[in-house]
């Protein structure tokens, strides 16, 4: 996953609270292999009517090239399905701006290079207001934690560790394997100090 430090793109507003991950991608699409692309599943049941036709008035449908989403409180709450992030990414999104995010969603987003930019409810409302008449260009800068839209400049919040990871495009597994010796030592200590933490009936040997 490549890192990034600044994103310039088109922003669109979906000023609703509690867009949970079941709405971001309904469960019935989740058996699809990622290679097939998840973009069409994004917010599927909100964007389409019962006959699968796109609802022309739905904000995302008015701007298919948007890459920044301004949303309401508690975005991505609920299920841990990372497919919700895949759907956003495959639909072209790189940044979601909201007053708050589901914890697991936010971690999943960062793991895939999607920025969950947290702003105050007032800032979210102001940005949504700016976009009320239609999509606009925005610049999101990780280093300064700033969002620029026309003459409006606001700041957002993202954990230090997450910001570093997004900028560097780090893969956690590589980082962790640097600590392989400490992990092995920890395991051995735990095994002798807490033998009860290992399953009595062995697991793997029972594999069929």
């Amino acid at each position, binding site marked *: 996953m490549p890192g990034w430090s600044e994103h310039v793109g088109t922003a669109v507003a979906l000023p*609703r*609270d509690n867009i*949970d991950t*079941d*709405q971001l991608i*309904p*469960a*019935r699409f*989740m*058996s699809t*292999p*990622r290679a097939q692309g998840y973009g069409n599943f994004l917010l599927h*049941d*909100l964007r389409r009517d*019962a006959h699968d036709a796109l609802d022309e008035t739905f904000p995302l449908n008015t701007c298919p090239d948007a890459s920044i989403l301004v949303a309401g*409180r*508690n975005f991505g*709450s*609920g*299920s*841990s*399905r*990372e*497919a919700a*992030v*895949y759907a956003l990414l495959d639909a072209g999104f790189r940044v979601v701006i909201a007053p*708050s995010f*589901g*914890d*697991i*969603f936010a*971690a*999943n987003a960062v*793991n895939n290079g999607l920025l969950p930019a947290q702003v105050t*409810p007032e800032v979210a409302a102001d940005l949504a207001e700016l976009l009320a008449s239609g999509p606009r260009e925005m610049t999101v800068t990780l280093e300064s934690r700033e969002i620029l839209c026309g003459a409006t400049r606001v700041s957002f919040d993202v*954990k230090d*560790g997450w910001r*570093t990871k997004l900028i560097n495009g780090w893969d*956690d*597994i590589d980082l*962790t*394997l640097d*600590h392989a010796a*400490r*992990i092995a030592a*920890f*395991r051995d200590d*735990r095994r002798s100090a*807490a*033998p*009860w*933490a*290992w*399953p*009595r*009936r062995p*697991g*793997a*040997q029972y*594999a069929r």
Partner: protein
Amino acid sequence: MTAPRTLLDKLWSAHEILRRADGTSLLWVDRHLVHEGSHHAFAKLAERGSAVAEPGLTFAVADHYAPTRARGLAQLPQIARMISTLRDNAARHGLRLFDLDDAEQGIVHVIGPELGLTVPGLLITCGDSHTSTHGALGTLAFGIGATEVAHVLATQTIWQTKPAAMRITIEGALGPGVSAKDIALNWIARLGTGGARGHAVEYSGSAVRALSMEARMTLCNLSIEGGARFGMIAPDEVTLAYVEGRPFAPAGADLERARDAWAELRSDADAAFDREVALDAAEIAPTATWGTSPDQAVPVTGTIPDPDMLPADKAETARAALDYMGLRAGQPIAGTRVDQVFIGSCTNGRIEDLRAAASVLAGRRATVPGMVSPGSAQVKAQAEREGLDRVFVQAGLDWVASGCSMCVGMNGDVVASGQRCASSTNRNFRGRQGPGARTHLMSPAMVAAAAVAGEITDVRPFLAGRAA
């Protein structure tokens, strides 16, 4: 003198391998549970050419896509593909798989404790947000995404920032017909679905101590619906009695050592919490949701709120929810007609849940169709030994095999568009039980009462003269 510590502090430090300068900890994972939905993570592992670091600590189960009507997969190509992918991955990496026909198969959060894979003091991860369930036994258990699942598979560790500590203390005695589900829906309604975000919730107080192990699992299970990734309860005699003798749980000398370690697993008397919330058990009534998020819940004696009377930040959401649910503001929630019912899921699919529902249904007929899916094959067998299956069938409900089923609808068990379902599950999100489905969350006993009445109704009169 060490500073007083919370249960969270103790569990965290017992698993912390190292901490980075930015405050993120690398934690050791004692148990990693995977299911069909973990296919993205196995694909990532394959891309890297990595092996599973600790196959002996990794357990796989078929639950999310498990067919509940007939286990045969011939007619279900999409489901067959998900299950065979899991089988292939388990075989490739040498993992113990609880497959569809296994006597120990079931929903991942039901079988963990049931088999003794979950014991106090462990750190448990799973690619499912209701992993908080296992915290009921005094574990640090949390749901993770696919990238994190791949990371745990490859390293048996996970990077996490320590959450803030929050304590929900529930004192007093629950009234008859009131259950752990009602406690959970109450605190979530009070604090909101984001109310505990960024926190690990420890449940304490006399009402929590009085709960059975299974009821504690229901309570911890729903932590995520209040935004908390972690829910936990300090182990006590109830926990020990539950754990002992389970097939994967420690025995003999290991158990002796475990008991000593587990005795330490409680928050010190003067440990400080970042947030404290108190509830009075006696004030909690059987509860049902009316909207499209779990915090949109009222006592069954209450009315569906009027969005105009709600604070501005809740009004819009409430209006949209009422519209989706086809309900009118100001109506009593009781008397809302339902089209069908569902009893099951990792929230309320254990044997005590089925007993509670059966005690309402015994000798009565359901007036709407419905399905009962036990949380595991062992729960199913136990229920059949007790004759509960006959109670459900005689009431007119379908008795099916175990799996996630209508909790998430991945196996094809869905609620049709526009239909209203009284459900013992955990999420009433738009479309959760199928596109356009209208879900009302409540306890299994409340679902049973709704089945008989054909509408949402107070379960308490149904319990008169019966053991609840």
